[in-house]
């Protein structure tokens, strides 16, 4: 069963100097429980693809299915709900909310959804991403980069999404912390979460089982590790 399916997805940006085709008839399918990477040089359409899979943007044409929902033509409100419930985001710059403490950042998606028991579950998530409980009341500015990314991963897991979308998750980290974060993502994948990593770093891509290479808005190759 696939958690993400794209069928002939095209995204055209209208610019003052003419139109730009960022994605050109891209079709791909990502199975539940998979661990994949999307690679490509800058300008290849990586970010556009990530935004479309992440329901932050809608395609000009083609069909996008997340889980069992066709999201190609949903309203802003419906897309917001899918982002909250079905997708977990991990960003290069961690992007934690500065006014919230570590544990509150993790609890935030659950509070948005109106889940009860979010405090206990946030603590549990902290533990599962390898953060000491002493850090729970710290603001993001009081945490190291690696700690912030762990909080971000815990936040992404909060509403038990089917898929985690990680955009250069190790881009702002040193190599030792990077491998720890990738190990953590691998662990989360082994527990059943589908993980999609967008990266240009081959070391990061090596953690994944399948790599989609994008060139000029098209999928140039798919490499699977067997």
């Amino acid at each position: 069963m696939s958690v993400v399916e794209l069928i002939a997805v095209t995204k055209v940006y209208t610019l003052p100097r003419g139109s730009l085709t960022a994605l050109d008839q891209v079709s791909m399918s990502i199975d539940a429980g998979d661990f994949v990477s999307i690679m490509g040089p800058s300008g290849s359409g990586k970010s556009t693809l990530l935004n479309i899979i992440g329901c932050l943007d809608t395609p000009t044409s083609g069909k996008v299915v997340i889980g069992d929902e066709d999201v190609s033509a949903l309203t802003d409100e419906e897309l917001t709900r899918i982002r909250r419930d079905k997708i977990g985001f991990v960003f290069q710059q961690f992007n934690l909310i500065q006014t919230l403490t570590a544990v509150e950042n993790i609890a935030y998606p659950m509070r948005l959804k109106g889940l009860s028991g979010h405090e206990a579950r946030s603590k549990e998530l902290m533990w599962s991403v390898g953060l000491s409980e002493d850090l729970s009341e710290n603001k993001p500015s009081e945490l190291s980069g690696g700690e912030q990314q762990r909080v971000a991963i815990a936040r992404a897991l909060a509403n038990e999404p089917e898929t985690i979308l990680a955009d250069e998750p190790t881009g702002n980290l040193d190599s030792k912390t990077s491998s720890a974060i990738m190990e953590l993502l691998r662990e989360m994948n082994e527990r059943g979460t589908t993980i999609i990593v967008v990266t240009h770093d081959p070391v990061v891509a090596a953690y994944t089982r399948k790599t989609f290479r994008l060139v000029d808005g098209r999928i140039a190759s798919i490499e699977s590790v067997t």
Partner: protein
Amino acid sequence: MIFFEFARRNLARHKFRSVLAVIGIVIGVLAITALGILGNSVRLSASEQLHLIGNELVVFPYGDASISEDQFEQIEKVAAGAIPVKSGVDKVIFNEETALVSVYGLRSEDMPNLLERADGQFLKHGSSDCLVGARLADDYEVRVGERVTLKTQKPRIVGILQERGIGFDINPDSAIIISDKLFEALYESTGYNLVIVKLESVEETEAVRTKIEDRLNKKEQVVMVMELKMIVEGIKNLFNMISLFLLGIGSISLVVAGVSILNVMMMSTVERTKEIGVMRAIGTSRKGILQMFLFESLILGAVGGVIGAGLGFSVGYLVDVLILKEASYLFTASSIAYLILGVAFGIGTSVLSGLYPAWRASRLKPIEALRYE
């Protein structure tokens, strides 16, 4: 309420800026409440001092003449119970002190209808005694039973009147009142200086006025009829205008405060663009963002409004005690209403100023906001 919590923390994050924005609201609300309470107190104190009765008509002679007995009878036909008044100014000696005061000659039967006693009694029919107004009695320390000297006569004071306030018909507070007969004898006067007509209701005044005018001013104008209602309304309008003017001054400072809040909120939405993008990306709805910013302006307005109203009340209290020497005006419903109005204006201005920035923030596209550095 998570978005309220966000709002509170975001304001706390920029304490100095939030305090400045609040100060603007405080000044605006302070101006509205203090000026409102002040205007209201002045109005209340004035209406205590003015003797204003809306259902009265006063008939004056036109020109130098007086109203003749004949003309008075004509008036009485239209308005039963009309009260004829003779008046003049003369030197009166109280306990060897001479004062220039108003002297009124009234029919004894009219006195209870027009005046109120503080002490003693009214004049009996045919009496050659007198009544003294409250102010005069106070200033010259005269008591019932004493005598005053008026021309050749030495009438005895049989009653002291209650304070009536400044009136547009008669002003008995600083006057002595004698019978019409005595007045006639002393001053050889024949006609009346004015006629007071008391009516059942305010609604009748215009009709009766027209009737009197039609009857007496047939050939030429001999009388002038004044409706006290019009004066009462004129004064009310004047005070309403003063109140509005003061409120206007207060509102200007609130508008300035509103602009400063708009500015603070715009700055804050631009600064937090990236954070808004993150919040939207992980599933915060537009409504949530809108609420967060509206709560921020609500908090600014409520804090500023309450502080401003508190200060406004204190200033109003000081002014009332120091200038009007009466603090009771503060605790009237109309003064309290200005406090509520002030807080409401403060919150209203603030929320209104926050609407556009909040709306703009909620319409940001998540991808573009995320990319913002």
